[in-house]
């Protein structure tokens, strides 16, 4: 195949002298692309059907029905051809973003989106081969014009999809972070801190601060941290927990950790986290009983001492 090296050389054809390189922003003037677009428009119906068929064959977009795939395919096809014609990817970008907004909540994966766009690119390329196979000179020039534009479209759609996905992920992360972590007083000088959901560094830090402030405000002697709602734990989070416990101790409160699931306990041991200073109890009920024992013992001690000091 020698058409790659030919690509940047439009001087071969005198009538093409005025044309820019196909990858640059002057597609609307490119008669090759015009010809190509006209041809694709002519065969719109067959190409769309072919594409929809190939999508189903490749098991892409499994969450969508055939009708949906076909109607989306039509939209994408038209946008795709428009983008080829005008060389402007703005409309396609907008459309790709809207499409992503629609299909992301339904669980469409990145590889599926990239897969269908690449499928379309290949189907159209095949179509061009079929049409121009007798005139390989012409075919080469058509492909020179087509390939960079098609690749740029594929990149645009892929990037739009991933950006949209990241936006959704960021939104969800913020939502999780904003979920308040309540520190509840259930007895005098006894707090519980139920942790639910995903712990990341920022949330762990925020949580530690809330916990320490609550210890000071409630003059807490014992804190029960319940992590029944924490599905997984990694080294960073484990270290944050250890730090929270140690910081609570420096504030004068004992900490009891409860609700470690089998997965979490195994992870903690495998991670080799130093938990020697952590007091752990199997479930929240046991933890509360232990905490009441501790707080009750200390509470009584404190009142005794104050009483004696007053007399």
């Amino acid at each position, binding site marked *: 195949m020698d058409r790659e090296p030919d690509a940047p050389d439009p001087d071969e054809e005198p009538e093409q002298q005025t044309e820019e390189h196909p990858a640059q922003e002057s597609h609307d003037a490119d008669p090759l692309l015009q010809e190509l677009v006209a041809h694709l428009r002519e065969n719109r119906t067959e190409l769309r059907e072919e594409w929809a068929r190939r999508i189903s064959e490749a098991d892409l977009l499994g969450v969508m029905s055939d009708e949906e795939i076909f109607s989306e395919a039509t939209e994408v096809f038209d946008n795709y051809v428009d983008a080829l014609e005008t060389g402007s990817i703005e409309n396609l970008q907008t459309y790709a973003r809207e499409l992503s907004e629609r299909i992301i909540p339904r669980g469409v994966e990145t590889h599926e989106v990239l897969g269908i766009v690449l499928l379309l690119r290949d189907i159209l390329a095949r179509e061009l081969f079929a049409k121009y196979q007798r005139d390989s000179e012409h075919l080469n020039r058509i492909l020179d014009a087509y390939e960079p534009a098609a690749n740029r479209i594929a990149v645009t759609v892929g990037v739009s999809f991933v950006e949209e996905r990241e936006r959704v992920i960021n939104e969800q992360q913020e939502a999780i972070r904003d979920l308040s972590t309540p520190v509840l007083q259930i007895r005098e000088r006894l707090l519980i801190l139920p942790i639910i959901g995903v712990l990341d560094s920022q949330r762990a*830090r925020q949580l*530690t*601060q809330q916990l*320490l*402030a609550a*210890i*000071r405000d409630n*003059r*807490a*002697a014992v804190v029960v941290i319940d992590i029944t709602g924490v599905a997984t734990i990694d080294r960073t989070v484990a270290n944050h927990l250890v*730090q929270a416990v*140690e*910081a*609570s*101790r*420096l*504030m*004068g*409160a004992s900490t009891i950790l409860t609700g470690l699931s089998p997965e979490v306990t195994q992870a903690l041991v495998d991670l080799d986290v130093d938990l020697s200073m952590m007091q752990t109890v199997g479930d929240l009920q046991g933890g509360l009983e232990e905490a009441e024992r501790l707080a009750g013992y*200390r509470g009584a*001690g*404190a009142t005794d*001492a*104050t009483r*004696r*000091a007053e007399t």
Partner: protein
Amino acid sequence: MSVAILREGDYLIAAILSDLTDKEVLELRGELTELVGRYRSRGLVIDVSALDVIDSFVARALRAIVLTVRLRGAQTVIVGIQPDVAIALVQFRLNLGPLRVALDLDAARTLLDQLTGGEAEDGR
């Protein structure tokens, strides 16, 4: 020096009133070691609630005071560590194991009574 040292029964109370220079920290350590011996104190309470910042030098000095004073026969309880200070101290990753901590003076007294076997109260 911006530290008030009060004697109360068998206990000594050192309230740090404002941030200390490194030199003052070392002086405090010397003075407390000296006073614990002179008054034959059995317990020492160090109140750090006025400190918004405890750097690693002060943290190490506190630890040194605890260990020194213990050799002179007194147990130490630190009181009033602020939330931000607690987080910072933990992040220094110093060995703060020897530090006994209480939330306030009441709790500190209770803790000291336990540590010293409550004889201070009985002797009164």
